[in-house]
């Protein structure tokens, strides 16, 4: 399968003044997870993060941890869910999010190759720092996968510049110091982190970690190019919301985002 690059897809949309909505789904969390992916694609996601469950997810809060445990208990392996994913015929770009040990264990080139084979076009590895990035960067590039890097509120300008230079697909701006999870509005530091990276990149800047409600998503896209919504969606799925529940929530996020008007 040869797909357009993630970055190209997202740049296009941003250029078209569309604000991006990137929901996160834990692969293998339930029987119907693929239907959920399909449903949120249909409900207006611009790209979808597919979490591959890892036993020790240090960047994730309780909700995503619980989903990972459920998924692993169901026997999920990276191989098994990627195979399933390959069966989907989806136009929406897929971005895998997982931890480095799964990638390293599989072999960097092999892992990148597998992603490419099943139609994934981007990959986020939150525990792979810029310093250790080059091996994966090359492996991903070789097969046209866009490796997405993170910038945090704590990242220095100098460091943000270096990260921006090497991130592909989009720039993941961490909205708040902390792990994934739902938060109330007050704690988001979106403005600061987004303006920190803007001078250094023309990539779409999407904000994740702590974006939970339509209102937050709307607030986020006032300064950023997109909003990443993980725990809030995963919680609904853990509570049994299923593909429809997911679609409804994504619909709400979509309208909130789309209703934002911009000056100039």
């Amino acid at each position, binding site marked *: 399968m040869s797909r357009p690059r993630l970055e190209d897809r997202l740049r296009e949309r941003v250029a078209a003044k569309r604000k991006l909505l990137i929901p996160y789904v834990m692969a293998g969390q339930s029987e119907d997870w693929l239907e959920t992916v399909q449903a949120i694609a249909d409900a207006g996601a611009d790209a979808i993060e597919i979490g591959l469950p*890892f*036993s*020790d*997810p*240090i*960047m*994730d*809060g*309780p909700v995503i*941890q619980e989903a990972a*445990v459920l998924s*692993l208990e169901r026997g999920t*392996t*990276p*191989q098994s869910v990627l195979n399933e994913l390959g069966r989907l015929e989806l136009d929406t770009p897929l971005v895998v999010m997982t*931890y*480095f*040990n*799964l*990638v*390293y*264990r*599989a072999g960097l080139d092999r892992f990148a190759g597998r992603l490419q084979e099943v139609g994934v076009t981007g990959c986020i590895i*939150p*525990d*792979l*720092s*810029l*310093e*250790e990035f*080059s*091996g994966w960067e090359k492996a991903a590039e070789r097969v046209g996968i866009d490796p997405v*890097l*993170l*910038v*945090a*509120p*704590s*990242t*220095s300008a100098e*460091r943000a510049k270096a*990260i921006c230079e090497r991130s592909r697909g989009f720039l993941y701006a*961490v909205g708040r*110091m*902390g*792990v994934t999870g739902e938060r109330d509005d007050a704690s988001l530091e979106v403005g600061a982190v987004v303006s920190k990276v803007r001078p250094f990149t023309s990539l779409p800047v999407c904000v994740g970690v702590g974006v939970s409600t339509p209102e937050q998503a709307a607030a986020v896209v006032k300064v950023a190019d997109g909003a990443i919504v993980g725990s809030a969606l995963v919680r609904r799925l853990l509570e049994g919301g299923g593909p429809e529940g997911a679609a409804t929530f994504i619909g709400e996020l979509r309208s909130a985002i789309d209703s934002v008007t911009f000056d100039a």
Partner: protein
Amino acid sequence: MSEGSAAPMAEPTKAGWFGDFGGRFAPEPLMPACLQLEEAFRDAWADPAFHEEFEEVLHSFGGRPTPITVCKRLSEELGITLLLKREDLAHTGSHKINNVIGQALLTKRMGKSKMIAETGAGQHGVASATAAALLGLECTVYMGEVDTQRQALNVFRMELLGATVHPVTSGSRTLKDAVNEAMRTWVAQVDDTHYCLGSVMGPHPFPWMVREFQSILGTEARDQSQAILNDVPDYVVACVGGGSNAAGLFSGFAESRSQLIGVEALGGAAIASGIPGVLHGMMSQILQDEQGQILEAHSISAGLDYPGIGPEHAHLASIGRATYATADDDEVLDALERLSNTEGIIPALEPSHALAWIMREAGKKIPKGSTVLLNMSGRGDKDVAQVREILQAKGRFQ
């Protein structure tokens, strides 16, 4: 991914690599903290005033230097000369205090007011709470819920010392998960909080920094064994969980002719049964399944139940400078009992692993007449309730 560093136990590369192991696999929100910590540590470690304060606190508060005890009766029985470096006599009962004093001083130096720490059996937690009390830092200790129940008294100790103990309910609810949780918390509080990691593990600069803080015991041991033996010991042996006591000890002998032996718990043997991987911010030998999911370690000793090992040990093993062996639970209990009743020292379960190896190999891999230095990394008081239960179940005591 890395280039090796030169002499064994030299400084790691700029990026924190010991040969093929180490590095800094931390989420970006933590990276600035790691960099800040590295800088602060480099700065402190180059500052004679810091060394002076560190050593002074370890001396007047921590009880350093700890002595070396030459075992008379057990040496005779084993046909070797057995020396014990007595970290069990350090304040709070193990070598852990060396590291936490260093990190607590550094916390203040960085202008942070809080410390968090992970703990398994509670030894590092108690040590961290102790250092925090001493320096007036706020302290929260993350501890697997299973461990908080098994080690309720240690929880109370930490609370008495003014720390908050946070039971971790994720994953296997043991040490590995306590580390995860501490890291997660650190991500959120990195501004005013230092993460006081308990062993030579985690992202750079932790493995190097903790080894440096622990090197005081190796330096002492080298000078002391020189004074006693007029030579270095033939064997230098330590148990290995994360590997901090071993790293501290080995550092005193890395460039000598001494054979360095690390002993892991059979059920948590990252060198013998692990393969390279990334966990908790470092590349090292890790117990994991085919997919790369981390396995739990299982042994009699909570302090060794860690599925990884400090990256420097993985490196020392790979270049053959140190050898890593294992001991099983039964041998360990025997060793604990034997040292208790021949030498009047009840060892913790962790160093009992190292002793078990010595007892097994004396006259075999260890030739008769050898001189052997064992790091008595901690005292058995924390373990007697557990050991009692086990030995009573075996009908050995009533």
